[in-house]
């Protein structure tokens, strides 16, 4: 089993945000995680990313328990993520954003200068920027880009680390249709090629359904449905959960 969420629960004060959510992924590919607002997607996501601790349950990656690990440890295991509010290094250029993502982060290696050869990192970063149509912004400060462009920078920065698991939190929200198309193409092309497991939280159904091979639907903190996009779209319970 590549990746497994087993019986995760989390409550805040009186409210139950996640209530025994479970699903398992056998192999790399794109998995959509959807559900109406308040379904507990983001909390589950935060738990997977090490931002919060679960009250109960486990997250396992290749059989190893990874919930409760510090974010930097997860990153070293091959987890990369994006943030809902989109976080990039605003004071660095796009290229530097990618180069930073690609560089070695272990303190001792940094201090001793044992790092990825700069030329290789640079080539890879340029290639990804080109794929995202950002080549001409290579030397522009990320903070000066539009929101959609920043989102693309954030996601290609995650990709440049060659992650095993890529976690994207609503990558499509607030992105205009043109850039959304680019984002779609970048993910559709790189994810299978890199053999990464992409876990995608998204509200934009069109975006999710066209990318994901499998969709997990959450509702009121638990998994409501799980299957191919067609199957899920046809599920009456899902439609009910959405339209309230």
């Amino acid at each position, binding site marked *: 089993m590549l990746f497994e969420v087993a019986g995760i629960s989390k409550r805040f004060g009186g409210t139950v945000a996640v209530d025994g959510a479970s699903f398992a992924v056998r192999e790399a590919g794109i998995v959509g995680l959807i559900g109406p607002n308040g379904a507990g997607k983001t909390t589950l996501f935060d738990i997977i*990313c090490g*931002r919060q601790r679960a009250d109960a349950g486990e997250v396992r990656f290749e059989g190893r328990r990874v919930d409760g690990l*510090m*974010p*930097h440890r*997860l*990153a*070293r295991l091959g987890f*990369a*993520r994006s*943030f809902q509010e989109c*976080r*990039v*290094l*605003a*004071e*660095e250029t796009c290229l*530097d954003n990618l*180069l*930073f*993502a690609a*560089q*070695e*982060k*272990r*303190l001792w*290696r*940094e*201090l001793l*200068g044992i*790092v990825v050869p700069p030329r290789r990192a640079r080539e890879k970063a340029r290639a990804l920027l080109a794929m995202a149509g950002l080549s001409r912004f290579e030397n522009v400060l990320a903070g000066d880009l539009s929101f959609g462009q920043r989102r693309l920078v954030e996601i290609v*920065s995650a990709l440049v*680390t060659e992650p095993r698991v890529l976690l994207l939190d609503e990558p499509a929200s607030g992105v205009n249709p043109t850039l959304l198309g680019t984002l779609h193409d970048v993910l559709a092309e790189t994810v299978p090629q890199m053999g990464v497991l992409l876990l995608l939280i998204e509200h934009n159904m069109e975006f999710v359904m066209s990318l994901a091979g499998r969709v997990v639907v959450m509702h009121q903190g638990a998994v409501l449905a799980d299957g191919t996009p067609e199957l899920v779209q046809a599920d009456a319970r899902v439609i009910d959960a959405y339209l309230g």
Partner: protein
Amino acid sequence: MLLGLGVAAALLPVLVPDQPYAVQVLTLSLCSVVPAVGLNLLFGYTGLVSLGHMGFAGVGAYAAALLMKQAGWGFLPALVAGAGMAGIVGLLVGIPCLRLRSHFFIIVTLAVGLILGTLFNNLDWLTGGAEGLPGVPRPRPLLIGELRIVLGTAVGFYWMAVAVTVAAFVVQWAVVRSPFGKSLAAIRQDEAMAAARGVNVFAHKLAVFALSAAIAGAGGALRACFLRVAAPSSFDLGESINLVAVVILGGAGFQAGPAVGSLVFVALPEVLRVASQARLMVFGALLVVMALYSPRGLLGAAVALRRRMRRADAV
């Protein structure tokens, strides 16, 4: 241009010989440039404010002064040992303090500075107490084969100070450009994101805190040797706060920031020597204006101005 100014300043004693006062003032500025470089790494590049940094400089100063006075060490080994000692103290202090949230951290650095200052003042048997340790010797001449370089005179010591300062700037330059520096910059801009990219935020902060304390310690050792006395009043809260002012005035997060800040905050008032209250009032007003309009200091203002002028040119 800034480099040119720096070189010009460094060469001043050569270009205009026999100006011992100019040498004195420049050396004094260098003595605060070095700890400012340390603080700049911490504050300017990593975004951590320390209000007690001259405490670490004091650790370096007393360690070096004791080694030179009591154990007869030479200046350079004593300086390195002083820096190391300050680094170790920084490390020990950092382990508990860096876990704290920003406001708590700032106030704890203040407390650490005060505690170190109290120790300098009170440990009579070690630090000479409030009277300080007078009679710190100047560096012995450096012998390289037949060549004998005199470092004990004012000009000789100035060159020594220039060398130490350059070394500090080289360290800063190397750190800022290195992957380590990039991680620090990421921590400053977005801690959560840096962590998600694999940066062990705590370890990195601890490393830069210790490094910054060590550089400050080297600056303290330089200062004690220059003044030939290690005194608590050189490393008290007021001095720590002046150091923050130096870094911010010059431009936190600019490589040349500490040099510019020190020239403006230390050298300029020393040269002007006009009514001190009036001068301090003007500096106070300057700091307030800076906080409101140019948080990145004089260099930040210069960069913004240049950018605006370029834009005007383009139009």
